[in-house]
């Protein structure tokens, strides 16, 4: 995979450092990351380590204090006749606009694209159907439960059909059933459309079920990428030893321990 052509780098960070106070304290430092077309990368790491910050940088919402960003999705946004956007993000808090109905929140990213009104509505409704909220389209955000809000945020990002989809704990507030069904939807969309996905989660099982690669952000401050595993599993069954070994390795890496390698499964099972 490392030998792909340049056009296939959707987004990349080169030795990026980020500080919220102009350089006095760094949250992230020396972070380099390349997202290639079609990858599904899960980002794991302890609370407060800088995962959301990293996503903001990739989304272009923050300029890195040091280092450079690059990649096809990060350079150009959709042109004048575009019907899709190069990047989209699901925020950790749902971040809905309180004055817009659910449908119009989902349509937010479509506005400005070269689509007719009815196409926009159709696309937004399709996205709402994917997240199971087709009946809630006229409600205002404050009438939604926590998980419903989060799903609207997911629909809003899906509907713009981005090359690069950045998701910050999108399924955190969902029950396992809804969660599983959304995971399956996401998986299907990813497989069909060859989107590039960067997915923050705290759920190791979720990461292993979905990702082609897992990146661990830890240490610090400043934090950095302390480990990376390219997953090589044909069947993503949590009850297989391969799955459990990966899970144990990741658990250790998040805790800041060295990667225990393939032997870890048995140790972790003792917990």
């Amino acid at each position, binding site marked *: 995979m490392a030998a792909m052509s340049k056009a296939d780098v959707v987004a990349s960070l080169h030795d990026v450092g980020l500080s919220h106070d102009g350089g006095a304290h760094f949250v992230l430092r020396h972070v380099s990351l390349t997202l290639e077309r079609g990858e599904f990368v899960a980002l794991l790491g302890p609370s407060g380590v800088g995962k959301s910050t990293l996503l*903001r940088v990739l989304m272009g*919402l923050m300029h890195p204090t040091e280092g450079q960003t690059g990649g096809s999705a990060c350079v150009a946004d959709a042109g004048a006749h575009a019907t899709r*956007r190069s990047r989209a993000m699901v*925020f950790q808090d749902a*971040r809905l606009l*309180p*004055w817009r109905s659910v449908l119009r929140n989902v349509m*937010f990213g479509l*506005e400005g694209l070269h689509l007719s009104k009815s196409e926009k509505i159709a696309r937004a409704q399709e996205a709402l159907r994917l997240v199971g909220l087709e009946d809630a389209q006229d409600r205002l955000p404050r009438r939604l439960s926590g998980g419903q809000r989060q799903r609207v945020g997911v629909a809003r990002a899906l509907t713009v059909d981005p090359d690069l989809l950045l998701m910050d704990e999108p399924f955190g507030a969902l029950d396992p059933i809804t969660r599983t069904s959304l995971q399956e939807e996401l998986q299907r969309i990813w497989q069909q459309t060859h989107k590039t996905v960067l997915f923050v989660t705290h759920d190791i099982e979720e990461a292993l079920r979905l990702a082609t690669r897992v990146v661990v952000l830890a240490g610090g401050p400043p934090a950095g990428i302390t480990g990376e595993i390219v997953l090589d599993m044909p069947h993503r069954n949590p009850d297989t030893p391969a799955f459990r070994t990966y899970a144990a390795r990741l658990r250790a890496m998040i805790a800041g321990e060295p990667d225990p390698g393939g032997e870890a499964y048995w140790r972790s099972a003792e917990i």
Partner: protein
Amino acid sequence: MSVKLSGPARLGLGLAGLVLFFGVWEAAVQSGLLPSGMVPAPSSLGPAWLDEVRGGFWQQAILDSLNHYLLGLLIGSVLGAGLGILCGMLGLLDSLLEGVVRLLRPVPGLAWVPFAILWFGLSTAGATFVIAISVFWINFYAAHSAVRGVDPELYELASAFGHGSFVGRLVKIVLPASAPGIMAGLRTGLGQGWMSVVAAELFGVPGIGARMMQASSLLATDVVVVYMLTMAMLYAITDFLFGFVRKWVLRWQP
């Protein structure tokens, strides 16, 4: 949890409050607690009003005042809210104008009267100018602080979904997010406009304010109060009508 009152209950209570207010006032005057020379009895207001209506003074005063009120309000609100939004969004413009704003803002509407006479003469234009100025600042500050108070996370959201340009932020985020504040400013301006009507008419432009001052020179406190209440009524009407606009614009609010 605060008590939630139904519409009719609110209205009833409001009326009860008014009845109480006028009742206590009338009783105070009747009992001599308030000397009648200093405060008219509410019961004397009706006759005084009828006199004014019969003479045609009341209708004429309202028409005259409405004329410069509406024009001044429109000009002041549009310019004030517009500039307030721009300054709230554009730090550079805000800084550049800050000194001038600080200089001009505290100049009272009344203090502009001499210049209103000099620049516009005694036409409605002079009165409109005085009203517009006072309405302007209210809207400027309301819009400015509403825009400043917009959650910066929403700008992030706008950027993330292709609305990071000035116009995008303005239309998609700033206007709706600051609508409650801007509406509050417009509403305050609506009231301030009526207040400035008196000041604007102080130098002879005919209208409610001029008529009020004329009555006060004769100690016709009943007529003065009739015009005070007339203003209250006109304000209530404008405020009521504006209420519909506000409700519609902010229909998403709880």
